[in-house]
């Protein structure tokens, strides 16, 4: 579509500084960043949270949230017609930058739900751009909007434009966002983690779509992500950021196969580490299948009633967990994998009877060999069982009471179960902190003084406090950056070795499952569609859904681009 001189970058960022003045100092979110975007090419900006990649993207359009502002540097935008403008020098509220936004440079965001207005129809939000920049009449704009929705493969676009954001599914919302961004045929598309909030299969579809549209329109794409797999899948060039600075940039091939910077190397190392089963696990004796199961779940159902009307009558049920059988043996790790809404988290919580299961048995073998059905236990007996079955939560922030010290949090189970108090409690808490790799002196601190990874360690220490036999880990590493993820998993494996723990590991992340689990159960719409040895399920899945799931996961290797050729599961 465009025929500009190929040599000249469309956007050229030089020595960009974006600062956030805060009380008592300045946060240099972007600290001297330089790179170029070229027509028809995809540049992936990669980095962990807080690296400044998102602020860089927003700096281009001058839409950094206050009090942030572009302090220094230039962002030269070279148009196809030969004119250039330094976007960094424009007034952020001025007419000039506004005529660039949405028309020549468009942007899409991470959370399509919250990034779209909840009270306007999708059509309204798309036509708005058209009338604003292209001066179209309402009618023309509507026709064009339908066309756009069709282009992003939204079925029945005539009706879809009348719908509201919340009526769309996650993937559809992101498509609508893309349609909105493409409305004025922009020359540059900035995508800020557009697939992070999506399931892998949906992510694959969106990546496909973007790739196709880019090819059709010859846009320059700046793609921000923390996922090295996605980078490998789509990038032409990669910019690696760390603490506001570009640590390395280059063609994708070079970054993945000949990284220069130690940070890039570390990042890739961590990613690649998770591509294989854990070393620790590999060194272990396999758990015998003959051993009596620690946990034997039979026919477990968890149905949530859907109530409607004034009298809250139950009209239907959400079958979150629907007739699930799983077995966990002492010392082994069972992975439960699935996409959002598959019921895996509900299943994990049912095991400890956080929810009251609708039907089924959860047979738990006590150390003395007796078997209790957790699903129907009396209060006191349940309490005893819960001492042996513990839980680690996904969100390291929400799962720790911010109003209690770390010592109190870890000591709580010991205290309320009458196991220890006073100085004994203090000593045991110190020991637990040490065990999870934290300084025992930190017991007096509050959770807000700790980083995410440290908090997750505190969560583990709390789970360990009662010397459990089984731990249900619900997405225990999803909230962590990739560099921390492997550390955390290694810690858990170490503890498993030392304490003969069994884990039920709930995750959506195949690489994490592969890394830590002995066996895997794949869940889809409340049912377990496939169970088996981790190696077997991850490498040679049987069920169609598992195949689709696995093939949609992008591999962190630009030489193995495969999403396009992925397996598609149609139920």
């Amino acid at each position, binding site marked *: 579509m465009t025929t500009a001189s190929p040599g000249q970058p469309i956007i050229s960022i030089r020595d960009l500084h974006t600062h956030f003045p805060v009380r008592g100092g300045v946060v240099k979110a972007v600290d001297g960043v330089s790179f170029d975007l070229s027509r028809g090419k995809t540049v992936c900006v990669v980095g962990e949270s807080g690296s400044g990649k998102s602020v860089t993207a927003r700096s281009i359009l001058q839409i950094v949230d206050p009090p942030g502002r572009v302090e220094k540097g230039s962002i030269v935008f070279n148009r196809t017609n030969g004119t250039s403008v330094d976007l960094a020098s424009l007034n952020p509220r001025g007419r000039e930058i506004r005529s660039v936004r949405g028309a020549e440079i468009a942007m899409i965001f991470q959370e399509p739900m919250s990034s779209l*207005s909840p009270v306007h129809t999708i059509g309204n939000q798309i036509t708005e751009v058209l009338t604003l920049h292209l001066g179209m009449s309402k009618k023309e704009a509507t026709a064009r909007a339908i066309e756009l929705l069709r282009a992003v493969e939204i079925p029945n676009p005539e009706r879809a434009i009348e719908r509201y954001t919340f009526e769309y599914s996650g993937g559809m919302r992101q498509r609508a966002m893309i349609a909105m961004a493409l409305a004025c045929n922009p020359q540059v598309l900035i995508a800020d983690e557009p697939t992070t909030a999506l399931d892998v299969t949906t992510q694959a579809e969106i990546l496909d779509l973007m790739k196709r549209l880019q090819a059709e329109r010859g846009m320059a794409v700046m793609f921000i992500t923390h996922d090295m797999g996605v980078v490998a899948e789509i990038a032409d060039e990669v910019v690696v950021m760390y603490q506001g600075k570009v640590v390395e940039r280059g063609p994708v091939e070079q970054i993945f196969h000949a990284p220069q910077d130690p940070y890039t190397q570390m990042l890739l190392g961590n990613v690649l580490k998770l591509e294989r089963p854990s070393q620790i696990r590999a060194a272990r004796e396999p758990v015998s299948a003959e051993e009596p199961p620690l946990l034997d779940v039979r026919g477990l159902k968890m149905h949530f009633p859907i109530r409607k009307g004034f009298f809250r009558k139950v009209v239907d049920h959400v079958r979150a967990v629907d007739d699930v059988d799983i077995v966990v043996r002492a010392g082994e790790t069972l992975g439960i994998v699935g996409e959002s809404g598959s019921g895996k988290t509900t299943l994990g919580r049912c095991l400890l009877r956080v929810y009251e299961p609708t039907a089924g048995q959860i047979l738990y073998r006590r150390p003395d060999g007796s078997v209790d059905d957790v699903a129907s236990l009396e209060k006191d007996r349940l309490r005893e069982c819960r001492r042996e079955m513990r839980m680690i939560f996904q969100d390291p922030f929400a799962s720790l009471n911010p109003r209690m010290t770390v010592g109190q949090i870890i000591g709580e189970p010991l205290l309320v179960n009458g196991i220890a108090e006073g100085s004994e409690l203090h000593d045991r808490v110190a020991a637990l902190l040490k065990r999870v790799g934290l300084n025992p002196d930190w017991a007096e601190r509050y959770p807000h003084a700790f980083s995410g990874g440290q908090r997750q360690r505190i969560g583990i220490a709390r789970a360990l406090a009662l010397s459990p036999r089984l731990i249900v880990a619900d997405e225990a590493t999803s909230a962590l950056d990739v560099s921390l993820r492997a550390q955390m998993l290694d810690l858990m494996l170490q503890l498993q070795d030392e304490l003969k723990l069994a884990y039920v590991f709930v995750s959506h992340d195949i690489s994490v499952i592969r890394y830590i689990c002995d066996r895997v159960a794949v869940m889809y719409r409340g049912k377990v569609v496939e169970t088996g040895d981790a190696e077997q399920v991850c490498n040679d899945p049987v069920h169609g859904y598992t195949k689709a799931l696995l093939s949609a996961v992008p591999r962190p290797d630009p030489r193995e681009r495969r999403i396009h050729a992925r397996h598609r599961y149609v139920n």
Partner: protein
Amino acid sequence: MLGFIIKRLLWMVPSLFAVSFLAFVLIQLPPGDYVTTYIATLAASNEIVDRTAAAELRTRFGLDQPFIVQYFKWIVGIVTRGDFGLSFEWQQPVSELIWERMALTLVVTSSTLLMTWALAFPIGVYSAVRQYSIGDYFFTFLGFLGLAIPSFLLALVLMYVAVVLFGADVGGLFSPEYQTAPWSWGKVQNLVEHLWVPVVILATNGTASLIRIMRANMLDELHRPYVTTARAKGLSEFRLLLKYPVRVAINPFISTIGWLLPNLISGALIVAVVLSLPIAGPLLLQSLMSQDMYLAGAFVLLMCTLTLVGTLLSDILLALVDPRIRFD
């Protein structure tokens, strides 16, 4: 949606019965009855009601009957004949008395409402957008000040200042020559001239709290991702604010419109008493004070009905403006 509305309407029937009974009990609670207060009122100007006359009044008003009989008669009258009874004090049908005052009540309260909104929305938005600016501090301070001054105090002082220093004609809503004149341009103008004092006083308080709410709502919405999205589209700041965050921040207000309905009657009560406004509030107050049972009962019942209808109306309105609720 229709089923929902019908169900809510049906639910209102027992509620109204309960409320009407409660209203009746409340009005009967204070010691004495209408005749006692009537005697006491006249005694204030050394006027004397004969003892037998008092007894006769009680019989005539049915005050010598048991409470439950009085209630029963009243409610049967309402249900079967739409008859709310006779005001003891005025010997006029209650409904007539209430309706007489409704038109001006609506004028005062709705212009107050309009003024409140017209002031509070822009200021609230401004305060939020320019958080911690001089203007924000100024309006915040002004807002709190408006909340802090008892309205009756403001009314009295403002009235005195207007009358004595500016020679304004404040008591009431019309100049004498327009009191009973038919509606004309002159009369409307005259009304507007009189209206500003009560409206300013009444709006002061409401505006102050509304600014605070609007500001808080806006601050919640201003940093939402969808605002950034809109900004990335190239919308001007003004259009952007108006179309997105303001639109969402306004929803909580729409849900309070229903709550304003009963306020139409009782909202301006205290100020109306001070300023001698011929609206419903003072009549309500007077009927409660003099235990003019049927009049007070009708007022309370009317207000409860308005509350219930208003709540329903709010829910419907909210569903209309907020698709998230409509499709829930």
